[in-house]
């Protein structure tokens, strides 16, 4: 089993970059991984004939057959448990959970087996499983279709937790996740599925290693630490902040576990102020970890406590009210304004 297959050679034709959506880049990543490695198998609800409710697996059953892209019965624990058995036999399963909240039935399989099998067997039985989960809100979804469940996974030792925010990372990180010999919970920000960027399936970006954050915007006044669906909001907030005289850095974490302490701490030290932004409920969320570890590492560089802008500690609201729940530009700027500038 290859642990990091190189990206496929560029296809013959035009090399000019074109525009692509995150959804299509994810689809390309799956296709290329399946072409490169016959042990890669996709399974989940509606992933075959339909190509997934978000069409991320579109065309895979047609190209690779129903066995490589399997429509399963409707049972998430069964899907993940079956994937565990397939991985034990040398396959490299990529599981799709249809929505964030519908991954919960597989929680026991994930926590008690997927995360622990390598450890339990002293490294003899690794489980190279990728678990793709469309997550987060902002798409007008009804109850149970907008959960941000990253904290549950990030808190579970033995899992990698990765979430792309750009089209290129959709491709690069998913290729890495599939090539990883560790289980990866791959969280896809569903409201960015249709976001576009310059990118071409014919000349895909290289594989992005897991575990590295990236500074998306370099500033000097304060640093926004964020990931996934909140990245575009933070970039927008950073633009808006210029009017207030603040020049903000924006860090895209990309990988929640492992965590890139180096990049994050450097970015925070450079500005002395930081705000963490994410959609999920704040209490005991990933933002708490980020704030705590940044403070541990950068205490004497901080002019103000690291603040958090997160979803409220409430069940995800009905669609017509979600705008009030989601961290938006104003709420981020409010937090920035509280970073004790008068000192």
């Amino acid at each position: 089993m290859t642990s990091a297959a190189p990206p496929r050679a560029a296809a013959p034709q035009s090399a000019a970059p074109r525009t692509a959506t995150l959804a299509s880049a994810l689809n390309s990543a799956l296709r290329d991984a399946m072409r490169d490695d016959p042990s890669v198998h996709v399974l989940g609800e509606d992933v075959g004939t339909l190509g997934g409710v978000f069409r991320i697996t579109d065309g895979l059953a047609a190209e690779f057959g129903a066995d490589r892209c399997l429509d399963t019965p409707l049972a998430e624990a069964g899907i993940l448990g079956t994937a565990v058995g397939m991985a034990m036999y040398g396959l490299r399963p990529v599981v799709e959970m249809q929505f964030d909240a519908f991954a919960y039935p597989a929680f026991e399989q994930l926590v008690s087996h997927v995360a622990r099998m390598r450890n339990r067997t002293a490294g003899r039985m690794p489980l190279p499983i990728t678990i793709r989960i469309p997550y987060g809100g902002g798409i007008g979804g009804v109850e149970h279709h907008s959960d941000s469940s990253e904290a549950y996974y990030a808190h579970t030792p033995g899992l990698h937790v990765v979430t792309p925010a750009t089209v290129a990372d959709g491709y690069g990180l998913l290729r890495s996740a599939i090539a990883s010999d560790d289980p990866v919970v791959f969280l896809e920000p569903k409201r960015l599925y249709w976001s576009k960027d310059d990118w071409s399936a014919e000349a895909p970006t290289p594989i992005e290693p897991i575990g590295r954050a990236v500074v998306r915007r370099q500033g000097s006044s304060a640093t926004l630490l964020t990931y996934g669906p909140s990245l575009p909001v933070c970039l927008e907030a950073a633009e808006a902040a210029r009017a207030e005289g603040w020049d903000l850095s924006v860090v895209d974490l990309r990988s929640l576990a492992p965590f890139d302490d180096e990049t994050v701490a450097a970015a925070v030290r450079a500005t002395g102020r930081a705000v963490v932004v994410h959609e999920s409920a704040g209490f005991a969320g990933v933002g708490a970890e980020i704030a705590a570890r940044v403070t541990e590492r950068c205490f004497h560089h901080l002019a103000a406590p690291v603040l958090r802008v997160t979803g409220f500690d409430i069940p995800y609201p009905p669609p017509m009210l979600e705008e009030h729940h989601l961290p938006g530009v104003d709420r981020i700027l409010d937090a920035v304004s509280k970073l004790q500038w008068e000192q």
Partner: protein
Amino acid sequence: MTVLDHDLATAWTPDAHGPRRDPAPLLPESEPVRILGTPALRRTVDSPGGPELLRDLHRRLVVGRRFNQQATTLTKQGRLAVYPASTGQEACQIAVAGALRPGDWLFPSYRDTLAVVSRGVDPLETLTLLRGNAHCGYDPYEHQVAPLSTPLATQAPHAVGLAHAARLRGDSTVALAMVGDGGTSEGDFHEALNFAGVLNAPVVFLVQNNGYAISVPLAKQSAAPTLAHKAVGYGIQGRLVDGNDAVAVHTVLGEAVQHARSGAGPVLVEAVTYRLEAHTNADDAGRYRSAEEVAGWRERDPLTLMERHLREAGVLGDQEVAAAAAEAEELADRMRTLFHVKPELDPMSLFTHVYAEPTPQLREQAAQLAAELAAEAATGAER
């Protein structure tokens, strides 16, 4: 020397006859129960109250179909966020309401809005979830209807618990849980049926087998002879019925509810039916099933079947058909009116019902939102 079953039984169970039981009485019929087009229809027609019952079922079918159509129209107008139509499954949906008494409880799945409305819940309140202004829009205690359940099969154990609690209280309540063919694959379905069997709870499980779970056909969902055969594994009664035959579903569900109410134990009913529309308005059913297949099922449309057979049997005439259509139009009118009004939204309601009393943390967060809203209002006023 032989190990006697009888010995095993006394050893393990309080009951000298258990655990081994004869499976035969639990197995479903080998063909779905049908009444339309069979001699049984004539018997119904000739029974006291029969013609009224049949006309009533027909009327409710017609109204139910209109409900589905109007709700679908509302999605096109952007007045509903999404609608999973039960078009083609109306016979099951209305039969549920007919089989239950007031005091009985209904545990619907996300597609079962028509069953909820048939039970008496206001259409606007029923559709709130799908409109997007609130989660469950109705008071579950008003008509004894649990919230529409989106996570599949998770409401099945709730029905068991409620039925069990009611029996402990000495009430004659029956709970009825609705699950799709796909939902039967979930662990919660299994655990619910097993608990029901062990507790002998007065609960009925209705599986609407419409052949698909979104795009996944039944053959990829289950290899069972029929879904009703699952009952035997839980020591409960399995029944198989033609889900497009409104009279048959009404009859079989009525018997099942009576069976449960009498203390004879839970029942699993599989109703064989078909979803004529796409999974929801957002789905493209053409990707996974053929026009011919759908056309074949349109010929077996529960409404068409019902009207044809009742006319043939002489219990339905133009007048009744027209009256039903008028009632259906009235409902559609009412829905249009109801949905014409924009819902009132209170952002502060986000914090009201998370706990009995908001925690200090939620009070802080509510204050933050209130301040934001006030600031916005001020800015708005300034402009």
